[in-house]
């Protein structure tokens, strides 16, 4: 997971206290029937979620699905219209934010501009009455944890986006909160920094054993770092599960479409199989018989010989992705489908190929009759 040029970090001895104190003793987080309305608009429809101590759970979904709202209700920055939020078994719905003992990292711009990095980091400790010297030491440790000990004297505007978010992380963690909340902390960063930082966040989280809730719209990010993912849509949780679960067994078409890359083709369900391109495939979940949209993952498809069961197609584009290729083809019945295959199989534009299906179960979504 580490990129080659991240220097190995040795923790100063005092930060062992952080590790020993919290490892494995995280706080349980529960959402019980949380509803949030703004005026007459309902943004959260009764969210139920149980997060085990020390677990890393992502709230994943498109913009407007309510994931950030749910996080903010947990933080106390929004008040739930109904339902309750529990930390460590206690109902904290009535507890104001500054007393919930949480650590939060925002999407951007949350560092105080007039304070140096060290003072920013120590801020929470000072507000709790911890003396200057103690606070400074603990802040220094936290900055070492995120690899920025050498930048303690800088001001936020002198740091890059990735560095600022690391400081924000150190600042949130130094007070040893019960829960760590992250609201799309990587969305404003460059792609490469994003990957580095998400791995670091996960590593630190595992070391500290702190319960973490992570909001993102990037499914790849969620799959990479989470113990479990809650996929949200339109104010509801559609599915909660491990990354593998969600990828291989999406419970709803919404989840199937959101996680991973899928192509959609037409099929017909009969009994407990769906027929696609003359091939019968098992269903992941039972479905009503009739015409359906079938979600095919690129790795479920392959380039085959001309007489294999499947479908003829014409190559539109082919992208080299390092260890494999993904080729977009147009089938002879007009569908656009992505196929994953060996990098050494080169194809040409407009070449005729044959696409075959593997026998893995697929997710389907019934077609409405009026649909085109």
């Amino acid at each position: 997971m580490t990129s080659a040029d991240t220097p190995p970090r040795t923790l100063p001895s005092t930060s062992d206290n952080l590790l020993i104190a919290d490892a494995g003793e995280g706080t349980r987080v529960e959402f019980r029937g949380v509803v949030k309305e703004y005026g007459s608009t309902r943004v959260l429809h009764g969210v139920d979620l149980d997060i085990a101590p020390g677990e890393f759970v992502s709230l994943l979904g498109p913009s407007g699905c309510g994931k950030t709202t749910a996080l903010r209700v947990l933080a106390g920055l929004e008040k739930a219209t109904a339902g309750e939020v529990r930390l460590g078994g206690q109902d904290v719905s009535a507890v104001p934010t500054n007393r919930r003992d949480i650590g939060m990292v925002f999407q951007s711009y949350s560092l105080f501009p007039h304070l140096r990095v060290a003072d920013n980091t120590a801020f929470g400790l000072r507000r709790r009455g911890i003396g200057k010297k103690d606070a400074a030491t603990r802040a220094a440790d936290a900055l070492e944890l995120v690899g920025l000990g050498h930048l303690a004297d800088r001001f936020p505007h002198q740091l890059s986006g990735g560095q600022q978010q690391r400081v924000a992380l150190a600042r949130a963690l130094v007070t040893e909160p019960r829960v760590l909340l992250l609201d799309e902390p990587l969305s404003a960063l460059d792609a490469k920094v994003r990957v580095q930082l998400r791995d670091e966040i996960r590593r630190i989280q595992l070391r500290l054993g702190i319960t973490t809730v992570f909001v993102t719209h990037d499914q790849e990010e969620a799959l990479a770092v989470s113990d479990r993912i809650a996929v949200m849509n339109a104010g509801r949780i559609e599915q909660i599960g491990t990354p593998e679960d969600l990828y291989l067994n999406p419970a709803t078409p919404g989840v199937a479409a959101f996680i991973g890359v899928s192509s959609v083709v037409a099929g017909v369900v009969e009994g407990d199989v769906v027929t696609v391109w003359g091939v019968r495939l098992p269903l992941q979940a039972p479905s009503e018989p009739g015409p359906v949209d079938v979600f095919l993952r690129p790795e479920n498809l392959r380039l085959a010989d001309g007489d294999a069961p499947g479908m003829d197609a014409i190559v539109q584009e082919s992208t080299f992705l390092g260890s494999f290729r993904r080729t977009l083809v147009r089938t002879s019945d007009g569908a656009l489908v992505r196929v994953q295959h060996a990098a050494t199989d080169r194809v040409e534009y407009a070449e005729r190929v044959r696409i075959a299906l593997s026998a893995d179960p697929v997710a389907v979504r019934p077609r409405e009759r009026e649909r085109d």
Partner: protein
Amino acid sequence: MTTVRTLTGPDQDRVIDPVASEPSAPARRGRPAPDWSWLGLTPFAAYVLLFLALPTVIAVASGLFDGDGAFTFDNLAALGDPVILATFWNSTWVSLLTAVVGAVIGALVCYAMLGLPETGFVRTTVDAASGVLAQFGGVMLAFTMIAAIGTQGVVTKFLRDALGIDIFAGGAWIYALPGLIPAYLVFQVPLMIITFMPALAALRPQWFEAHLTLGGTRSGFWRHIGFPVLAPSFLASLLLLFANAFSSYATAAALASQGSQIVPLQIRTALTSETLLGRENLAGALALGMIVVVAVVMWGYALIQRRTARWQA
């Protein structure tokens, strides 16, 4: 596996829609033509030279020459005259007072408007009204002052007839130096609103929320984050208000048709009467004095602005 025909040449690994290839740039031929665009700057340069640089130089330099054209320090020495010094002092304390009071009131109004939609009724109205009052016509403001709290003003009469308070019991101060204070405030407060509102609006809600999550309170926020972050902008706006009041001429000219208790009025006197204190070109010396004061203040303003811009980036 499908047998694949590979393309020869550098495009082997990528099969792209052929229409997408880019045309290369046409080759440059011969020497590049001489660039005459410098000429385009000359009209503006000439204009600024003639109507900004030249007058300024004339204004300040004239203080170094007497009526016959000989170089002299007499005019500058006149700046040390007690009457002139008193004038500078008057200008300074009136400007300082109206700047501080204007800044505080203006900041309060900005705070009251915080969070309101920029295109909503309140802010567009206040912005337009502030623009009018801050930049538009000291003469007219003076007239409204006279109409309101002049010796025959509506408010004066009301206070006298209805409440028995005579605000001019001690003399007609409105036409003297103290009269400038309410008049100046009418344009200082709006100027503060215009200059300070952007700084206040730049306070990020994330700071407040982060502050909460770190265990802070609402009042603690203002103490530890809000005020420290706003302090430079407040100071900068204060300096601007000071410079604005110090430079102001029209309001005072309209209120005090005679007399010259502040520097701009002193310049008027110096310009409209041939000799003052037996020295010609005193106006130039006064102008020099004014420019020095205002330039120092504005330099401080520019310095602070540049630093805070980094925070708000």
